[in-house]
């Protein structure tokens, strides 16, 4: 079996300008932030980002990496709005495709199932339809004749997700309460990258004596192309039970949106030199 371990920088190097990138997690929870930071540090640009958005979206917008955001919401959870995303929207710096959150799941599922679309009721009557003239409806071919949204597939060039544990082959495990939609993001993507808190031998994931049951193995190796060991890789978002959200640092991140000078200072201090330097800078900031 292949050893798929690689670095976050190597993941970013496999991506290309203009790609559509799906990012797992939910709001400010279990976001693959180490991989996002690697994109920030790379020359990549003009990305389309598909996300149940949190600081992943805000950070990429602030760094000028994003052309378009496909989203149902962007929130930092304990802070309602991500000010970096707000600024990008309010200055017209990014285009958006705004969907109901169930429609986003439906589009990923259609892509995962290699279908052109899947029907869903969500979106009917709302401005989701008016704001996206490319959206179509479909009428049931059965006697009921109900009209539904024909949610088009949302195929991804690449998916980035962060889980608690993985082995070097790409079997990966979540230990928190919610899998979110990380498996679906991988199934909808051409290239699939998982970062994790710790790479462990396969037997330690759910074998005899392991703390977790086999149903915690959300991803299997046929769904994964690259494995990145990134301790603290979801910071400042939560990655329970390994750690909760770093609320103080998240506030600091949000405050950096105040003006271009504060952002430049934040980026220079935390984002310039890779993950070990990031962790050291966060530790120094917190001290």
């Amino acid at each position, binding site marked *: 079996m292949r050893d798929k371990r690689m670095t976050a920088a190597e993941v970013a190097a496999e991506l290309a300008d203009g790609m559509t990138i799906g990012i797992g997690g939910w709001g400010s929870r279990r976001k693959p932030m180490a991989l996002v930071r690697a994109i920030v540090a790379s020359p990549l640009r003009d990305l389309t980002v598909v996300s149940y958005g949190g600081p992943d979206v805000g950070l990429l917008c602030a760094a000028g990496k994003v052309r378009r955001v496909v989203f*149902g919401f962007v929130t930092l959870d304990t802070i309602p*709005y991500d000010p970096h995303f707000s600024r990008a929207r309010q200055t017209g710096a990014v285009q958006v495709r705004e969907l109901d*959150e169930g429609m986003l799941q439906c589009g990923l599922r259609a892509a995962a199932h290699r279908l052109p679309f899947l029907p869903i009721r969500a979106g009917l009557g*709302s401005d989701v339809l008016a704001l996206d003239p490319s959206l179509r409806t479909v009428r049931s071919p059965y006697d009921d004749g109900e009209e539904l949204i024909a949610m088009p597939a949302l195929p991804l060039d690449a998916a980035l997700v962060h889980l608690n544990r993985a082995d070097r082959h790409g079997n990966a495990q979540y230990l928190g309460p919610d899998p979110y939609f990380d498996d679906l993001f991988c199934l909808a993507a051409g290239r699939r990258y998982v970062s994790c808190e710790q790479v462990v031998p396969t037997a330690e994931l759910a074998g005899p004596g392991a703390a977790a049951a086999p149903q915690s193995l959300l991803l299997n190796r046929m769904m994964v192309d690259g494995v990145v060991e990134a301790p603290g890789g979801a910071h400042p978002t939560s990655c329970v039970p390994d750690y909760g959200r770093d609320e103080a640092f998240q506030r600091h991140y949000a405050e950096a949106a105040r003006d271009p000078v504060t952002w430049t200072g934040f980026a220079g201090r935390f984002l310039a030199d890779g993950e070990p330097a990031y962790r050291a800078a966060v530790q120094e900031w917190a001290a």
Partner: protein
Amino acid sequence: MTGQLVSGDGRSGDHRHSRPVSRADVCVAACADLFADDGEILASPMGLIPSLGARLARLTSAPDLLLSDGEATLLGPDGAPEGWLPFRQVFDVVAYGRRHVVMGANQVDRYGNQNISCIGPHDRPVRQLLGMRGAPGNTVNHRTSYWVPRHSARVLVDAVDVVSGVGYDRARAGGLRFHDVHRVVTNLAVFDFETPDGAIRLRSVHPGVDVAEVAAQTGFAVRTDDVPVTRTPSAAELELLRTVLDPDGRREKEVPTP
């Protein structure tokens, strides 16, 4: 029946009669009343006052409600986990229809259309908000209510800037058969949609609130004759709120009594 659920330690008996009922208490009871007919469904209250309302309803008028911890676990009334409901299963419940969500609203209009997306033109908003979230799907699949902690004509508007949650005008035009926007509870009043054309109607004003004040702070026309007063919570409900559900009085910070 509700009296049996009150903790019997006797310590709270004195101030129950001496402390006045607060505006927040009234709002929590009005939110509890939202769930009265719901039976064994998932209650999804967003925010403190609706959450207290749902938990109060489960201890009194709606004992079969299911409630989550805000993450992925369903908790029984005693706080013990009774089920697992990650977001993917919440989406299934939305489509299944056995759910009553109480959402916030940056704007609500006279047909119950709700906006949580943005203010101003969508391609370059004056103010970006949360995003559509689940509002389009919620409103076409199951019962939806709204909680407005600061009633003003900027929130209760004639027409919303962006339709996130679907109102009655659009639902009727589109024949949306599961659409069921129930009520809007604010810090001043309760609205419903029990009118022939689904237009919003002032259902009650909270005790101590002048109907003229509600009319002045609302961006669409409201009736001002013979408007009932929102009920005050019962002694048993106040006891539960003060001793079990919110002993620290967090609700008073969200809705101060004038």
